[in-house]
């Protein structure tokens, strides 16, 4: 009992910590399996050792973060945010690409290691967002009242888009929605905020777009939006519709291909559709119980692309079958549920929004990454928390876990 009590004082939520560490160890095992190919690829074969090393580093960092009081985090939000923005801006200048995304600028080369500044800017932005939203006396009644949190997220999000890294940018969006939601923003306002994005996609069909705009106006009437608010939302939607085509044309061909392939993977089975088709074949051929640890043939024969990073879940699906995928999904579900439990008990708005922001980020990663492996989501190349090979994201995730644990421990009664 004494040990559990000490752990609780230190950890706040031992179950969450156990789930995350266990999942991470399983991740190392899967990275090892991903390196077991019939024609060995030396960089992938040794990746599991590096991942284990990163896990060690991450746990040390996690323990260090446990010592940081929540008040200090709130105080550090502004400088951390500024540093994050500077890092992101610097990445655009001195950054390099990696792996299949060689043409982008997402990484900073520090000699022995490459780091991905966006993952750390992500944490800083959560803190900054929580600091701003936490000061709301009451939620705004008008969409114009959202300008500050939107601006805080839009700045790093825009920088990440310039790299370009659409997937990570999407995660920033998820973080903003999660933060606003937890701060009590009326759902109608969130809907209005998101509506231009819907408009962007709907605009490809002119009749559909007309119906959509009419529906939007009806919604604004029923919601009794302010006049200028309503006009602003409609104008934003019309603008989104207008820029949709130029925006599409400004996308890189591979980005266009990925979006098209998302709609029809058979379109280009040897090219852009390859990843998705091979991933689905790997997962589907796994069946109920899978082909066994390290024995996936799709993976062994190198049909699976990026099998140790973005498509690690396909390896799980191939080697452990439906039982394995549901098991991992359940663990993710439990982790996310623990986060909502912690956030629910926090009366302090800053702490609650930090935890729920992290929830938003992880939730987006899990849904987008796993959804992408069977074609429910476009291929955006964002990693799966605790499972995908990659030090920066693992470290950032454990830093986030450390903050959550500290916050929960300070709350003291879970």
């Amino acid at each position, binding site marked *: 009992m004494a040990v559990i009590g000490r752990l609780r004082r230190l950890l706040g939520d031992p179950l969450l910590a156990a789930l995350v560490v266990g999942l991470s160890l399983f991740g190392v095992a899967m990275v090892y399996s991903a390196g077991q190919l019939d*024609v060995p690829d030396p960089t992938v074969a040794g990746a599991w050792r590096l991942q284990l090393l990163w896990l060690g580093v991450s746990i040390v960092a996690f323990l260090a973060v446990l010592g940081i009081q929540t008040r200090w985090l709130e105080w550090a939000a502004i400088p951390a945010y500024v540093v994050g923005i500077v890092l992101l801006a610097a990445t655009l200048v001195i950054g390099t690409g990696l792996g299949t995304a060689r043409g982008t600028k997402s990484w900073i080369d520090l000699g022995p290691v490459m780091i991905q500044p966006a993952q750390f800017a992500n944490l800083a932005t959560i803190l900054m967002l929580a600091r701003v939203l936490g000061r709301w006396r009451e939620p705004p009644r008008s969409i114009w009242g959202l300008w500050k949190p939107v601006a805080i997220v839009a700045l790093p999000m825009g920088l990440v888009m310039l790299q370009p890294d659409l997937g990570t940018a999407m995660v920033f969006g998820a973080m903003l929605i999660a933060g606003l939601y937890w701060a009590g923003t009326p759902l109608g306002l969130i809907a209005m905020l998101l509506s231009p994005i819907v408009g962007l996609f709907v605009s490809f069909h002119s009749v559909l777009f007309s119906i959509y705009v009419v529906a939007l106006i009806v919604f604004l009437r029923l919601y009794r939006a302010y006049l200028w608010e309503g006009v602003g939302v409609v104008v934003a939607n019309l603008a989104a519709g207008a820029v949709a085509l130029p925006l599409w044309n400004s996308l890189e061909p591979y980005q266009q291909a990925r979006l098209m392939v998302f709609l029809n993977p058979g379109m280009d089975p040897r090219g852009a559709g390859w990843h998705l088709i091979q991933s689905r*074949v790997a997962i589907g051929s796994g069946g*109920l119980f899978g082909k066994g640890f390290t024995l996936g043939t799709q993976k062994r024969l190198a049909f699976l692309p990026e099998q140790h990073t973005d498509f690690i879940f396909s390896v799980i699906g191939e080697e452990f079958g439906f039982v394995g995928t549901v098991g991992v999904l359940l663990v993710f*579900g439990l982790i996310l549920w623990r986060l909502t439990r912690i*956030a629910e008990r926090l009366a302090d*708005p800053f702490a609650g929004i930090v935890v729920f922001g992290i929830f938003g980020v992880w939730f987006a990663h899990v849904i987008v990454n796993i959804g992408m492996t069977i074609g429910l989501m476009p291929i955006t190349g964002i990693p799966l928390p605790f499972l995908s090979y990659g030090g920066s994201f693992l470290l950032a995730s454990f830093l986030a876990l450390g903050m959550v644990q500290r916050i929960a421990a300070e709350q003291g009664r879970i």
Partner: protein
Amino acid sequence: MQPFHLYARRRRAQGAVAVIIAGIGGLALAFFHTQVLRSDTYALQSEANRLRPLPIPAPRGTIFDRNGRIVAENVPGYALSLLPAPRDTLYNTLRRLAPILGLTEARIAQLMEKHRAAPVQPLLVSSDLTFEQVSALEERHFMFPGVYIDTRPKRHYPAGEAIAHLIGYVAEISEAELQKPEFADYAPGQLVGKAGLERQYERLIGGKPGIRYVEVDALGRIVGEYAPQTKVPPVPGEDLHLYLDLDLQEWIAKIFPDDMRGAVVAIEPGTGHVLAMYSSPGYDPNEFVGGVDPAYWRKLNADEARPLLHRAAAGLYPPGSTFKLATAAIALELGLVDPNAYMPIPCRGGMSYGNRYFRCWESRGHGYLNLADAIANSCNVYFYQLGVKIGLERFLKEASRLGFTRKTGVDLPPELEVAGRFPDGLGWWRERFGYTATPTEVLSLAIGQGSNDQTPLKLAHFAAALAGDGKLPPPRIAAHPLAAPSPGDGINLSISPENLAWIREGMRRVVGPGGTAHLSSLEHWDLLGKTGTSQNPHGKDHAWFIGIAGPKGGAPEIALAAIVEFGESGSRSAAPLVAKAADYYLRRKYGMPVDSVQTLREHLMAGRPAPWAVWQ
């Protein structure tokens, strides 16, 4: 309400849990669909992904000669193929293979062209790898994605050059051949008989390739053999037995003068079985197996001796005096000549006909001659008169009936044999030269001059008919029911045995004492023959000899025709070839030791007694 009031937080947390359940549950449902409901489909796709069917070449049937000697066999060989891949990948692999295999730029371009024609088939790069090349490649296995080396039977012709034209060769099927309906069931890369017997009996000896599956990775690199029980074994080709006597064939190749061009054909009387069919100069058919080296091919094509030409079946030469035998046969058949009687006009070195004077080759003249003497002396004047008796139109008709305007129908691919060139009617001159033939034309034709070109095969076949009872099926090389000629085909001289005997008597005197070819006479065998000289506007005359031979006093057992280009004199260059070939064949047939000293001339040169020689 305060946004951070407990109830507000609880309500939002409940909303969040609903979102978790929706998100995770939605994914779980999708995975249930993919992994449980549609698992079979994806499992199949996963197999198809990694398994590539590869053909297993069928071993071709072995070809044996009449004594069971191997004419064509299979020896183990190594073949290198590339699995289907994008063009760039293939091209890069070929470039990297080039130093090891010795591929030229031109060959690579040729292979890329082949790939363009059949992009989903494995690309056969070489089926003639040495062991050193194979080990060099195995060491660098991972450098060469999609490279596949397998052992497969490789064709080998032990007799080499001696049977080059006859046997043909095998090579990869061409794009043009693939278009033909007869090759509908052939796949690109498959080996097919390209010429000669290999081609003629492809359906029989070719066999049917099997299929096996190999496991490949995403880059097309072969990782291993897949489940051996799923492979379809190849059906080996049937063996083929020939009437050919390979020893005789090799003997002829050996005795044929190395620097001379020409052909020798030997046929068994009565049956039409081809005992030997040799053309000089030759080439090594083994060089053609699995793709001929372009340099060798260029050399053969550029050679003015035209070694690729199968002179025995496709070489046309004016038959010269040998054709007098045909004239005699036609006259006897029509009952126009009494073999014992003299012709009305004696030979005084020539005769007048119409308003022209026609010369005999012997300006001193032969005097009065009967048929046998006329053949023995090859007297033109006698045969001019025979020609006039027959008449031009009848002569053309009968010569056509004897097949001098047609192919013999030997069992070789039809385009590899050419038909004799001989007027098949009076219209022949009009069609070709635009004038009407005068009746005097028959005088030239009767002595083998004029518009008349025949192949050695045709003359050997004709000689074999003379050697038997006048009837002979078409020549046959292979002993197989498929090769059986239909009844009625072939040659029928329609001459009585007595009359045939008169022709043979004439031929006997050619080689007999005082005959022009007496120096080619043999110690143990009767050799009968007829020399011929075909006038050659391009140089020295071509020399002919057609002969039949058998035990003394017995029926002839072998008939031969030999042509030696620029050989000048039939008796000096062509007759010894026929004599030596016949002697060799008959000695072996009757269990006598083979001796290289065979003809009378050789006995004299070697200083051996020649009791059968008679000097006049």
